[in-house]
């Protein structure tokens, strides 16, 4: 009975979506903010990647709040999972291939992650993507050798807090200068050069380190939780 009503509900939803679908004017939206940003972003922020200038300059406070949400989720995840008992059984050690592969991949992943973060204002990529790669770089040794303490949770929290504070501090510096919160600072530089776009790369580096340490801490928490079987 429940399945039948659910199927009926889905059918109705499908019909409704199909009806809406008939009337969508593909690609001709009345929102013009994007075109306006495309026209002025290169002069205003100096970043070649316009998505970066939207994320960090035009919608900088949104990014700050997003980091807060991620921080809250990671913190509550750690709280909900709790500590493991000392006598809880550990996962068996990984095989030779995974251990060697983890050792080999660790420096490569670090370099790739930092590259993606630092080129966020020039090419696709940036703090979020690079931060995830950094997190997986620090998680890989934990996967290969369960039980080692490669990352101390206190150091992770400290790094994360410092990165978040840097982000807010740069935003406040703009206010001391008489501009709005999170206005891009410093010299714009030449469009397309690695050192350009003022304070945006520094902001993205802070975002990357914060996201990376948060996710690495979360993954370590999940890996530490006791297995049931």
């Amino acid at each position, binding site marked *: 009975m429940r399945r039948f009503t659910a199927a009926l509900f889905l059918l109705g939803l499908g019909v409704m979506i199909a009806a809406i679908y008939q009337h969508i004017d593909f690609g001709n939206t009345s929102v013009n903010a994007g075109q306006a940003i495309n026209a002025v972003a290169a002069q205003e922020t100096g970043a070649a990647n316009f998505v970066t200038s939207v994320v960090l300059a035009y919608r900088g406070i949104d990014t700050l709040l997003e980091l807060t949400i991620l921080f809250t989720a990671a913190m509550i995840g750690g709280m909900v999972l709790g500590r493991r008992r000392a006598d809880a059984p550990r996962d068996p050690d990984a095989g030779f291939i995974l251990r060697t592969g983890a050792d080999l991949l660790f420096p490569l992943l670090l370099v790739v992650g930092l590259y993606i973060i630092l080129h966020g204002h020039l090419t696709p*990529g940036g703090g979020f993507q690079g931060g*995830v*790669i950094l997190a997986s770089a620090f998680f890989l040794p934990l996967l290969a050798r369960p039980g080692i303490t490669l990352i101390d949770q206190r150091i992770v929290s400290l790094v994360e807090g410092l990165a978040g504070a840097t982000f807010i501090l740069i935003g406040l510096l703009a206010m001391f200068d008489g501009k709005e919160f999170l206005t891009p600072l410093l010299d714009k530089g030449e469009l397309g050069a690695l050192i350009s776009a003022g304070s945006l790369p520094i902001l993205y580096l802070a975002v990357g380190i914060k996201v990376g340490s948060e996710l690495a801490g979360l993954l370590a928490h999940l890996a530490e939780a006791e297995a049931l079987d």
Partner: protein
Amino acid sequence: MEVVVLVVVIVMLLSAVAVLLFKDFLAALAAMSVVSLGLSFLFVVARAPDVAMTEAAIGAGLSSLLFALALRRLGLWRSQ
């Protein structure tokens, strides 16, 4: 171009259905990764390389890792 996109969309939707139908949770997780990978291709087609990269790194990579760890902790980590 359209044919390639159509094939990717069909594979993606089929694996999305498979996620909900597979009895084995590991197989469902693999199908979930296929969905994320197809989605990341569609983001490239929609001219959003930033989003495609995020989806590939987070959707196909990190989410699968989170799911795999959770399945291990929940005792659902067995393949038939």
